């Protein structure tokens, strides 16, 4: 009963969000407003994340899973099998010998290691979302590489410029992310992007060392956190952010048009 | 191409000597650890390049993987030790 109610509620909120988006787009197309406001509103609208049918489906499944208690970790036997296959593939790639003797040895070694460590490698895997997470993670990597290249050019510029314009800041912010993998992704991405290092994590607060004020402000804007939340399906605050964005565009259009 | 690899390896060796300044004179133990970790990453590349120069990459690639691994574990262990020493 509660499940259907909750699904209905989320569905309604998604529909409202989509309607608002559509309306804002229509207004944008029809209204004859000032050029720069138009451009600004268009940019804002493009930057908001649309609610795809995929996310809607995932959200539905998540709610159902929570209510059925299926959110618990997989059984240790499933973990063991998955770890075994991962390790065996790794062995074959390392070994490069495909005769019976070496493959048998690979099976034995993989079984032993999988028995020892099946509670380590796949400790906190959530049910049913792995494929989407992997796909989104792979699409995240090119952006990260682009950021790494930017950050290296930044460091090179700072190291080679004679006056060295640095102005270090230490900033702290708390995050809304939930699982440990997403924390690791966020922290390592912060370390790899221009001008920032994760120094410490204490009680859910990130302590970040930033090289100048501008970088610190960029980090506070929280684009990266939203991206990481999007990957690991912990995206409830993305939707709030979207609704706020759409509302802002709406208000701006009403004011100008 | 072998000459090019030799030149790259030589350049990395020179860079290692520059970083060695931080290891020897760098004030405080933390500067030294950071510099040692930087030397470790350069050594990894030098090992691979040696493999290419001698024509035995499939051997040297294992060595450099082990080197990267031990470098990582070493840095973690030393930083853990320094943290603990403060608590005692």
């Amino acid at each position, binding site marked *: 009963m509660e499940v259907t109610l909750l699904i209905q509620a989320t569905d309604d909120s998604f529909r409202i969000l989509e309607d608002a988006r559509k309306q804002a787009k229509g207004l944008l197309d029809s209204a004859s407003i000032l050029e720069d406001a138009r451009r600004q509103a268009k940019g804002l609208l493009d930057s908001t994340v649309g609610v795809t049918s995929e996310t809607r489906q995932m959200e539905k499944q998540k709610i159902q899973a929570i209510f059925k208690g299926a959110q618990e970790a997989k059984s240790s036997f499933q973990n063991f099998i998955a770890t075994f296959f991962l390790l065996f593939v790794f062995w074959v790639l390392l070994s490069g010998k495909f005769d019976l003797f070496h493959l048998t040895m690979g099976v034995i070694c993989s079984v032993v290691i999988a028995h020892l460590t099946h509670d380590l490698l796949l400790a906190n895997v959530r049910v049913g979302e792995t494929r989407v997470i992997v796909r989104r993670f792979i699409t995240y990597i090119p952006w990260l590489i682009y950021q790494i290249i930017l950050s*290296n050019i930044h460091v090179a510029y700072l190291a080679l410029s004679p006056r060295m314009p640095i102005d270090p800041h230490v900033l702290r912010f708390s995050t809304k992310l939930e699982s440990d993998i997403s924390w690791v992704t966020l922290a*390592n991405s912060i370390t790899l992007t221009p001008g920032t290092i994760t120094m410490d994590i204490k009680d859910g607060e990130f302590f970040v060392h930033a090289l100048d004020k501008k970088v610190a402000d960029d980090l506070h804007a929280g684009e990266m956190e939203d991206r990481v939340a999007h990957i690991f399906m912990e995206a409830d605050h993305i939707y709030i952010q979207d609704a706020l964005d759409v509302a802002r565009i709406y208000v701006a259009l009403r004011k100008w048009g | 191409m072998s000459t090019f690899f030799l030149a790259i390896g030589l350049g990395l060796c020179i860079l290692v000597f520059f970083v060695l300044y931080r290891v020897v004179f760098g004030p405080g133990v933390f500067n030294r650890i950071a510099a040692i*970790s930087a030397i470790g990453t350069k050594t990894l590349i030098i090992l691979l390049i040696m493999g290419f120069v001698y024509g035995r990459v499939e051997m040297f690639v294992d060595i450099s993987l082990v080197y990267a691994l031990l470098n990582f574990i070493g840095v973690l262990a030393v*930083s853990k030790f320094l943290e603990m020493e403060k608590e005692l």
Partner: protein
Amino acid sequence: MTSGAVILSTIFMLGGIFFFTTATIGILRFPDFFTRLHATGKGDTLAVLLCLIGLAIYEGFSLTALKIVFIAVFMALAQPTATHAISKAALRVGVQPWMKGEKEDDSSI
């Protein structure tokens, strides 16, 4: 071995050497420990990745190249973690970050 692959790997390795050089200059020039970590943590990561990709391209399509890619993945995972571990230890021990306007000394522990 096509000449295109050789040229591509040469470009990658020269880029790696360039970023190694700037990271080294950064280690030598930056004023305090945390700013030096910016140089080692980021500069070395990209430089190692570039050099490894260049070597893998030169090696061609084989299991050895795959192992080089394994090293690259491992470094991309391990280097930021090691940076984080060192900086956390330094912060816990009480090394103060250098702020603008202070004298350039680092009589850290």
